[in-house]
């Protein structure tokens, strides 16, 4: 590294031109180039069959890339068997050894490495302390709850200080409350221990909560890789916009483009100004994406200053405790959702948003993204 810094730390993991096919015809992973930095918490997010798990399995060594090479700390590892990769892994079904006690499970990676007894014991107790399960050391996995088992699996994957920890939907089998608690615990472990984590999930809120960066997979391709807030605010295409967070879609055709903004005629009538993110030019069809919390509802007849003002018909309102949603019919989209901030709930009761009422929605051009057509 140069004295002037700037050059970021070299990648701990580098996927270079990776392709994977199981049947010789369909590529499950298409030309993957991905760098993972040391100490980073990176999430591979995508629907099932998008290639995220295959990518993780190739990194772990349980699947072999059809093309390309994977580097771990600058060393090519395509031909290194899993047990020599020094990568810890946490599985969705915990994969604890049922015939061993909790302590023996955690000691397993140490004993295969022939760590001396005293040190191993020391590290196992430290690991048990870390997951606050000292008293359960002599139990067997079958006697523990799901959350406890996953903590043990975590401790077992961390106790030998691997270069990298992989997690394959580790919280998928837990109920919602426990899942949220474990998300925070894992995040905390990541921060205090400075480990590098590659995390696979199909749950976008989990990805947003935990990750430093998220790689959104679809159809064997990384659609976008970025920080959670950047993914949410600046999706590069319709898939990402749709997969991360709630999203309203309006179909239309680009009329004019002026630098970063374009004027779009909506298929359902009317026209709006939108940020031109992923449109080829005038005449191209596009999908507009607007987040529900970036939309305001104005009563019928009120004049508004913005260029984006569309008539809407209230379909329904949904009360969700901390906020409420209004479901509207806007330009042919009958499921156009608007998030009502706290305090405006009164409208629900006072009838100005009752089903069938006519209102207008407005949103700023910078909050409306013109993306590829879906």
């Amino acid at each position, binding site marked *: 590294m140069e004295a002037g810094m700037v050059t970021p730390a070299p990648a701990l993991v580098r996927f270079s031109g990776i392709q994977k096919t199981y049947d010789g015809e369909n590529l499950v992973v298409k030309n993957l180039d991905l760098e993972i930095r040391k100490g980073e918490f990176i999430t591979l997010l995508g629907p099932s069959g998008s290639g995220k798990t295959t990518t993780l399995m190739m990194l772990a060594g349980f699947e072999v890339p059809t093309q390309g090479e994977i580097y771990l700390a600058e060393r090519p590892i395509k031909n290194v068997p899993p*047990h020599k990769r020094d990568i810890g892994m946490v599985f969705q079904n915990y994969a604890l050894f049922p015939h061993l006690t909790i302590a023996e499970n955690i000691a397993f990676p140490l004993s295969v490495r022939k760590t001396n007894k005293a040190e191993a014991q020391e590290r196992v107790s430290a690991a048990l302390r870390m997951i606050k399960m000292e008293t359960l050391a002599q139990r067997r996995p079958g006697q523990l709850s799901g959350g406890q088992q996953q903590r043990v699996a975590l401790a077992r994957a961390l106790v030998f200080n691997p270069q990298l920890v992989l997690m394959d939907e580790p919280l998928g089998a837990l109920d919602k409350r426990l899942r949220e608690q474990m998300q925070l615990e894992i995040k905390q472990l990541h921060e205090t221990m400075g480990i590098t984590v590659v995390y696979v999930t199909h749950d976008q809120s989990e990805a947003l909560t935990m990750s430093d960066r998220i790689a959104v997979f679809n159809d064997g391709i990384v659609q976008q890789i970025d920080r959670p807030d950047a993914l949410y605010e600046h999706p590069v295409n319709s898939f990402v916009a749709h997969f991360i967070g709630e999203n309203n879609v309006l179909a239309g055709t680009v009329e004019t483009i002026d630098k970063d903004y374009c004027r779009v005629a909506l298929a359902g009538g009317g026209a709006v100004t939108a940020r031109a993110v992923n449109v080829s030019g005038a005449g191209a069809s596009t999908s507009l994406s607007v987040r529900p919390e970036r939309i305001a509802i104005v009563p019928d007849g009120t004049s508004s200053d913005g260029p984006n003002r569309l008539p809407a018909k209230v379909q329904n309102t949904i009360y969700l405790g901390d906020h409420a949603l209004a479901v509207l019919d806007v330009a042919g989209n009958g499921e156009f959702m608007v998030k009502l901030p706290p305090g405006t709930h009164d409208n629900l009761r006072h009838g100005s948003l009752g089903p069938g009422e006519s209102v207008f929605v407005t949103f700023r051009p910078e909050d409306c993204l013109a993306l590829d057509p879906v």
Partner: protein
Amino acid sequence: MSDNSSLRTPSQRIAWTATIVISTLVFIFLIAPILAIMPLSFSSGSYLTYPLPGLSLRWYDDFINSPRWMNSLKNSMIIGTASTALSMVLGTLAALGLAQWKSRFKPLVLAFVLSPVVVPGVITAVGLYFFFAPIGLTGSYLGLILAHTALATPFVVITVGATLQSFDTNLARAAASLGASPLEAFRRVILPLILPGLASGALFAFATSFDEVVIVLFMAGPEQRTLPREMFSGIRENISPTITAAAVILTTVSVILLATLEGLRRRNERLKGGSA
């Protein structure tokens, strides 16, 4: 019987009664021939007839003190143990390989591996005889052990294969990710967990060899007469109740083996602490 208390309607009660009656009949059908022979072994008379003239242990005494019977028991043990050990190695390796092999030829290969079970014993015996005779394996322990190994291996493949089917492959992967070489993962994780399957495989293999008579008839010299072979000639030549004593001893051995197996299985269940 607690099931019974929950039965309310008459038709349910009739069904329950019918189940009991039919099950009992099937049970008797299966077990009666074995039970019929047991009292005969304690007969004081020299003929296999009921009613028993009196009770004695003379046929057990005869069995234990006859060099012929004891030699055949020894032969059965040697051949049974050796062919069990051999078929365990071959069958377990085959089952492990087949379990992780994804190919459309798999059913074909599996059928091939299991063929000794399907082919009539006489045909196998004749085939083995003509195959083994030129290379001097007839009339030898080695020949019999190899022949019984061929017969027993499919049973090991089946039982171990069935166990592996319920084995969570993620456990092997977890072991590998934690640094265990394939051999070490097998020894420390896979083996302990499939042990009940191995044990029942071994039991089947041993039983296959232990009561096999056709191949022994073809291939064994006088030196290698096994227990079933001795019983067979015993029935043909002189019907002595010693055979019934031998039968009771064989049955007892089998029951003990089965009980051991069940004990092993339960112990394993307990170790897992119920279902995970």
